[in-house]
Structures are given as structure tokens and as C-alpha cells.
């Protein structure tokens, strides 16, 4: 009898939670620091147009965005890379269907200090800089000045994409400074004459200088015609096809107004 009561109590508790639901007017977003400015500006515009809406946006990195979608703690997980097989398996096991919503295009721009006369590098030269084979700007047509290599931390999506396309999956030189955000990379390159770094194209500014790669400058045209070699898509992951307010928000990001905000932040729209 005691066992039956225990089993019934467990079943009752198991069914009860199924009727719970989130606040229909609130949305939580977390993840990639690259996608962060898009999410922030779109959230502001969306909330201006829908005063009842309450959207909270935070960064953390692509791994954090996807981990939080798997854990069910956010409605949208931003990522500047595709979900890994490991994450897809974890998600399915947790009852979560990772659904990838592509919201923008991006190029990873190679940046140097504004005072550096070097304007162009080849992909092979960038690989050699980041694996430590080339350590002085004079070997690249610049002044005799040690190269200060700036990289992103290994958990960032930008690092993953850069590592795959430029480094062939190999590690950066041990002397590379690993920084936690696009902003930190841009600021360090701005303040360090011999520095080289990489950031999402949205973080290019007059404070730093973007260099061409294999003779191609990162731009909307070169990303859309696929001639710029270090390009990627940006994503907002949801649990299954977006529904409710998550759908409304992603529809807004994909709308002409949302895509205008994507480009206003320096990224490249889908069209």
C-alpha cells in the first residue's frame, strides 16, 4: 500500500509540471557576443513597438547561448557558429530540438593598429602569424616591430570559426593573448601598435584598421558573393521552430526593419 501511494504521488507530481508556462510577453536571450549588438538593438526596437514586451538580452558566448537553450533557461540562444554534434545530442537527450534560425551574415575581419602601414595579408600569412612562424612585422613589409597576437577565448564561436578556417583546427601560438569579447580585442588592438586581432565585421571602426585577406576586403559585397574567405552566418537558436513571442521577435529580426538594424550594426543582411 505504501509503495502504491509513493508511486501515485510521483505520477501526480510528474504530470502537474506539464501545465506550467512562461510569461507570454517576456523573452530571454543569451549567447554570442558577436550577435549581441543585433539582439540588443532589435530588442529595443521591438519593445518600442510593443510596450508590453519585456526582452532581456545578455552575452556570454556561443557555447553559453546553446547551453542555455539545452537547459531551457532562455528562449533564444545566440551563436556565431553552428551547433556541434555533441550539443545536438545533449539537446535531444534533454528533450530539446535545436532549431537554427539564420539572422545575418558576418565576416571575421582581421584588424591591426591604425599606425601599422600593412594593409593586406594572405590567408597563409595570417596562419603563420597565429601559429607563431612569423613574429615580426618586417617579414610582412611593415616596420621592425614584434607582432602581438590577439585571439578570442577558446569557448567563443568567433574563435571556433577562425580556428577552423584560418588555423585548420590547430592551436594559436602560446604567446597569443586570449580575450573574452570582440570589444576587448578591438580595444587592445587600438592601444597596441604591434597588435593583430580578429573581430566580427560589426566591430570594425575607425579606431582600428581592417586589412584585406588574399586581396579581398571584408564587405557586404564580398561576403554575399562568397569571395571573402573568413565569412560565416549568425544564428538565433530556439527549441524547435520558434513559437509565440520568440517567433514574433525572430520574424522582426528577419523583417526589412530588423535587417536594417543588422546592417546598422555593421553586419551583413541576408539579402
Amino acid at each position, binding site marked *: 500500500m505504501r509503495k502504491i501511494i*509513493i508511486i501515485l504521488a*510521483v505520477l501526480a507530481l510528474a504530470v502537474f509540471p506539464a501545465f506550467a508556462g512562461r510569461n507570454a510577453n517576456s523573452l530571454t536571450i543569451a549567447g554570442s557576443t558577436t550577435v549581441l549588438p543585433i539582439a540588443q538593438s532589435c530588442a529595443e526596437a521591438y519593445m518600442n513597438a510593443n510596450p508590453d514586451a519585456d526582452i532581456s538580452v545578455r552575452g556570454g558566448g556561443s557555447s553559453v547561448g546553446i547551453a542555455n537553450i539545452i*537547459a531551457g533557461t532562455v528562449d533564444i540562444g545566440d551563436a556565431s557558429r553552428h551547433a556541434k554534434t555533441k550539443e545536438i*545530442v545533449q539537446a535531444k537527450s534533454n528533450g530539446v530540438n535545436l532549431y537554427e534560425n539564420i539572422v545575418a551574415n558576418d565576416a571575421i575581419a582581421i584588424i591591426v593598429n591604425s599606425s601599422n602601414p600593412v594593409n593586406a595579408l594572405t590567408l597563409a600569412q595570417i596562419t603563420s602569424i597565429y601559429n607563431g612562424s612569423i613574429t615580426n612585422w618586417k617579414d610582412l613589409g611593415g616596420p621592425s616591430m614584434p607582432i602581438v597576437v590577439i585571439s578570442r577565448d*577558446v569557448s567563443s564561436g568567433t574563435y571556433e570559426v577562425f580556428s577552423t578556417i584560418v588555423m585548420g583546427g590547430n592551436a594559436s601560438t602560446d604567446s597569443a593573448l586570449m580575450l573574452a569579447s570582440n570589444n576587448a580585442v578591438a580595444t587592445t588592438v587600438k592601444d597596441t601598435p604591434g597588435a593583430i586581432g580578429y573581430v566580427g565585421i560589426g566591430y570594425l571602426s575607425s579606431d582600428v584598421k581592417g586589412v584585406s585577406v588574399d586581396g579581398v576586403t571584408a564587405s557586404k559585397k564580398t561576403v554575399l558573393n562568397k569571395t571573402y574567405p573568413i565569412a560565416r552566418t549568425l544564428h538565433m537558436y530556439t527549441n524547435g521552430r520558434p513559437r509565440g513571442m520568440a517567433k514574433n521577435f525572430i520574424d522582426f529580426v528577419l523583417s526589412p526593419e530588423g535587417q536594417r538594424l543588422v546592417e546598422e550594426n555593421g553586419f551583413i543582411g541576408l539579402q
Partner: protein
Amino acid sequence: MKKSLILLVVFLCLAAVASAETKFSMELWNRWTYHMTDGEVDQNEMNLSRGYFRIEPVFTPNIKGRFNLDFFSDEGMSNGAGIKLKYAYLDFSNILWEDANLTVGLMKTYFGTIYDWEYVTIEKDPSDKYKFVASTDYGLGISGYLPQGFGTYAFAAYNGEGYKKTGEHLNTAMNFCADVRLTPMAGLTVGGSYYMMNKNNDKIDDVDNPDRIEYNMMAGVARITLIPNVDIWAQYLTRETDKPHMDDYEAVTDQAISIIPIISLQEFTGKDLELVFRYDMYDNNTDVDNDVAGSGAYNTTIAGVNYYMMRDEKNSPKLWLQVNYSMKDKLDEDADDSSSIEAQLRWKFSENL
């Protein structure tokens, strides 16, 4: 102890210098146990059940390591604390083929749910509790993910005698394990493991020698997360032990069944709370009736609460309290039943260098 500390410092320095990024973390389990047998209190104790110190260097995106020391209260040691090596392995990913890991060293055992076990109850994973396998062992394994997130696979060769034995305490036979999990749809995972363990069989030709022992172990695992906020784990374990010196029969089979529903209450209470239930049935010999005198069969019922006070940015718990009430019901009616209340505060912190 001094030598261990020196080795630890050297390892720390080497790992920090050689890797692109190294994560240092510490996790501590402070536990209170109140245990009664047949109504008499026989344990009322507070201790440090675990004190994990972990170093996880990332050498390249495809080469990662893990080194884990376990500190714990131990009255047998002169200073009241013990230390043991729990993990020391390197993972080489995408080297053999896409999404595959080659793991070398003191690593987790790919058997049943022991690889997944996050101690949702204070009690150990069933295959650890019923001593089917050790949670970690020295070995070499290949694991990976099936395409499109369809599941996972793992194959490994181990010493077979866990992390506590090395050198002359080991037999010479290697042991083998295979595990497959399939996730055909989101919310449903099923799978199984097979572990072939033998002791000395390779060097003793005489099949009647009592030092020859062979174990064949299997695990069937299911996880269901189809109902929102509810996570159900179920496991069936069976082990056939073949000892030539046994008089009445050649083999003994023991088995265990475990069901663990976990219910998140966060959406209703606003607090990061979980209710956990666990029901284990262990039968030490399937050829003998469970209710006879001397039977070692017993059932364990556990009800508990997990309160997660802090989580990190990836939602992993950083500070949480577990309270469990458990009843051990021995099926031999002459044997004493027991029960216990345990409370455990777990906390961890980490830093990336």
C-alpha cells in the same frame, strides 16, 4: 604526501605553460549523515565527502586534458584526510574521424549511467553502488557521436580494477567495454552497455583454478524527458559471475533495477528546486529466493530535494543543497532494515588562465 604536492605543483606549471587555456576548479561536498538501523542510531556525522581539485588544460581545439584529485575525510589517515587520483586523461578529438574522441589515461567507465551520473541523489550511481564497475579506470577508449545527433557510442579497454589499484595489485588481463545510446527523437534516449571482465584468465590455463574469474555485465538504459520539467532515468543491470571453484553452480547472476524521476519545480515556485525520487531493487543471486534467510537482496527508496542556489553562465550548478531520505528494505525478513537522512552542501568555483 609531500611528493604528491610537489608533483601537483610541477603538473600545474606544465599544464598552464603548455596549454592555450587552462581551467582550474574546485568542488567540495560537505555532508551530514544520520543513519539508523532497526531504529537505533549508528551514525550521526559531518564530514567532507569529496573535495575535487580539477585542472582542465585545452592544448588545441582538438586536444584537451583533465586531471582530478579527490580529497576526502578519512579517519584511517593520521591527518584525518585522504587523497586519491580520480581522473588523469587526454582527449584527442577529430583525429581518428569526425566527432570521435580518443581518450587515454585514467578515465570514466562507459558502463550504464555511470558516465552520465551527476549525483542527483547523494547516493552513487547504481552500477557504482552495487559494485558492477568502478567509476573510473585506467584505459584507452574511442567515443563519439552518431550523425545528426542520433546518439553516442563508446568502446574502451581498461585494466578493469578501478582507479584504486595499480602495480602488483592488478591482474594481467585486459577488460573491454562497449556502450551505445540512441536518441531517435528529442526526449527519448535508449541504450545499453556490455562489459567483459576477467581476472588472470590469460595466464592460467587450468580452467578449474579458483583464481580465474569471469564477469559478463550488461546494462540497459532509458531516459525520458518528454514531459516538461520531468526527467526520468531507468536502468537495468545484470552481471554473471563465473568462478570455477563454486561448488553448487558454475555461475551466479546478480541484477539491479533503478528508476529515478526528477521533477523541476522552478516554473511553479520561482526557486531552482528539484524533487528527486529513486527506487532501486537489488537481487544478489537470481537463483535464490529473495525472502529466505541469508538473502542479500534489498530494495532502496530515496526521496530528496535539490536546491540550486547558484549556477554558472552555462547553467551548471555552482552552489546547491541536497537533502535525501532513504530507506533500505532487506528482503530477508530476519535482517534489520535501515534508513538515513543526509544533507549535503556542494559548492564549486573555477578560474580560467
